[in-house]
């Protein structure tokens, strides 16, 4: 059989026949894939961190609730538990910059341990690293935050907290910007890191921590180590709850809203409707052309070739609409990210989502062509010609 490409005039002729109808169908498919792109980006904004979280990391926090503190001394005790490789602790500052709307993802951490757990994820000049480690009032920030607020190295930044009061009686915690790091992780790019000692020296209830990040020696020990930690503190005044970093993040998100389920339900509804619309349009188009299809049969076009042509029509419509919709979604997501970076740092349309979209387009085109193919299968050439 000759290559299908040489039949392109027939495919485009069919699409040109009712230009408005074809354009409207493409627009419908485009809208479906625009929505798909936006929802996939939103899903990634919520769950992206779950997938990229270090698989060997455990998160330990109070078993009471997320806002309850733990004693800092727990860190040393956890470090002695068999299977534990590294322990770092952090406190959520609940910070903003000049206005409440300028939310900062600020943490007070144990500096060396925090850096040790992120050596592969960060790019930070040695001079800035050294300066920060030696400066109790220093801060490290991701380049996205620095760019957004036009912060420069050496600048004093008045960070404000909704939770903690500074010894000066205000909620402002001034820090000196010692380093700006770059990271492929959009989440890390959004953080502001302070010294735990600076924060601890200022609060009225010192030596407490929000959560611990624990790295285990072997991935196979993850569950066992988590169990050992929680057992160790089970009968203490501060019982703990330990889970893998991935589980922790997923549970945290799911407590707020089950984004995955919402995305899935919306997409099923949209794609089912679009499938009906596209399949109906194609079927109608085939019905209108039954005599022309019959003529092709008289010229020696096999049924299989005509099926392939109809499938090619469906592919052109769906791929055009789908690719346009995906491109539009990518542009919109990039635009939205500049406004929502502080709330949804991982908001982006991933290559994986784009490839999933492409797969869906092909599946969608094949499914749309099923009804027309069935019509052609039933079409009797002689009857179609008689019908005129």
């Amino acid at each position, binding site marked *: 059989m000759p290559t299908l490409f040489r039949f392109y005039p027939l495919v485009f002729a069919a699409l040109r026949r009712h230009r408005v109808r074809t354009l409207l169908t493409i627009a419908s498919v485009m809208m479906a894939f625009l929505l798909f792109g936006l929802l996939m980006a939103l899903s990634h904004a919520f769950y992206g961190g779950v997938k990229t979280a270090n698989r060997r990391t455990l998160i330990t926090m109070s078993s009471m609730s997320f806002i309850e503190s733990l004693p800092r001394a727990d860190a040393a005790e956890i470090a002695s538990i068999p299977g534990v490789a590294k322990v770092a602790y952090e406190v959520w500052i609940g910070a903003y910059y000049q206005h409440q709307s300028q939310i900062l993802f600020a943490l007070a951490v144990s500096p060396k341990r925090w850096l040790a757990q992120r050596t592969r994820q960060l790019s930070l000049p040695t001079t800035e690293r050294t300066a920060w480690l030696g400066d109790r009032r220093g801060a490290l920030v991701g380049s996205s935050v620095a760019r957004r607020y036009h912060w420069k190295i050496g600048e004093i930044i008045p960070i404000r907290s909704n939770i903690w009061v500074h010894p000066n009686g205000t909620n402002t915690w001034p820090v000196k910007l010692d380093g700006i790091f770059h990271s492929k992780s959009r989440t890390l790019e959004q953080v502001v890191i302070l010294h735990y000692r600076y924060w601890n020296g200022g609060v009225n209830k010192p030596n407490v921590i929000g959560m611990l990040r624990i790295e285990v020696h072997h991935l196979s020990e993850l569950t066992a180590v988590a169990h050992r930690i929680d057992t160790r503190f089970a009968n203490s005044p501060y019982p703990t709850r330990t889970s893998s970093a991935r589980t922790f993040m997923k549970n945290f998100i799911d407590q707020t809203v089950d984004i995955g389920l919402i995305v899935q339900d919306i997409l099923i509804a949209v794609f089912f409707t679009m499938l009906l619309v596209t399949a109906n349009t194609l079927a109608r188009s085939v019905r209108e052309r039954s005599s022309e299809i019959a003529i092709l049969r008289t010229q020696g076009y*096999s049924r299989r070739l005509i099926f392939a042509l109809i499938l090619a029509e469906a592919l052109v419509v769906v791929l055009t609409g789908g690719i346009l919709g995906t491109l539009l979604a990518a542009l919109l997501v990039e635009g939205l990210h500049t406004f929502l970076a502080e709330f949804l740092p991982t908001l982006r349309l991933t290559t994986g989502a784009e490839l999933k979209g492409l797969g869906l387009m092909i599946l969608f085109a094949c499914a749309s062509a099923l009804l027309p193919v069935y019509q052609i299968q039933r079409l009797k*050439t002689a009857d179609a010609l008689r019908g005129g």
Partner: protein
Amino acid sequence: MTAILPESTTPTPAVDLEAVSKSYRRGDEIVHVLDHFSFTVASGDFIALMAPSGSGKSTLLNLIGGLDHPDQGRIRVAGTELAGLRESALTRWRSRNIGFIFQLYYLIPVLSAARNVELPLLLQPLSRAERAKRVEAALTLTGLPNERHHFRPPELSGGQQQRVAIARAIVTDPPLLLCDEPTGDLDRAAGNEILELLKTLNERLHKTILMVTHDPHAAELAHRVVHLEKGLVGELRAA
């Protein structure tokens, strides 16, 4: 009743139907369109088939062209027994041996005349240049003015559209042309031009032509005229 037309004098007839029967179901009723119909067309012949509506003439063309299958009997076209061919083989055979011409032209309205004529050639392993050459030759042979080769069918007159349809039917050089009322949708002048064109194809290119028509004037051009009535051959006369 069974009627058998005189056998052709040529050893390998272009069309040979032997005791062919065909019936359709219309609701609860079974309509016998052809009943033990036998018919032979010699190679290079030009036959006009005249019959009232519903007498089975289009069915006959569809059976000869392999678009429909008989209930009984044997159909042999250009020495090939059609019953022995599978669907895919029948499709390939049709593309090489049969050219169809219809009353309503059945051109694709959004393609140019040349593109319409090119359609059967897309199935053959020909280069684009070779296809263009053959399309040009076929359109020129049918007398469509050069400047109209790239017009779309709605921009052409009925006669010109039928010329394009004829060019499409002959572009693969099939030996047999099956014409179903080719002048039925044309005025007298345009109809005469198409008939002259068919005559030329028969005389100069030795195409075997089987033409269904209602028009006695059209039938006059054929070598032979066959009258078909209620599925049976009622009369045969030389034109």
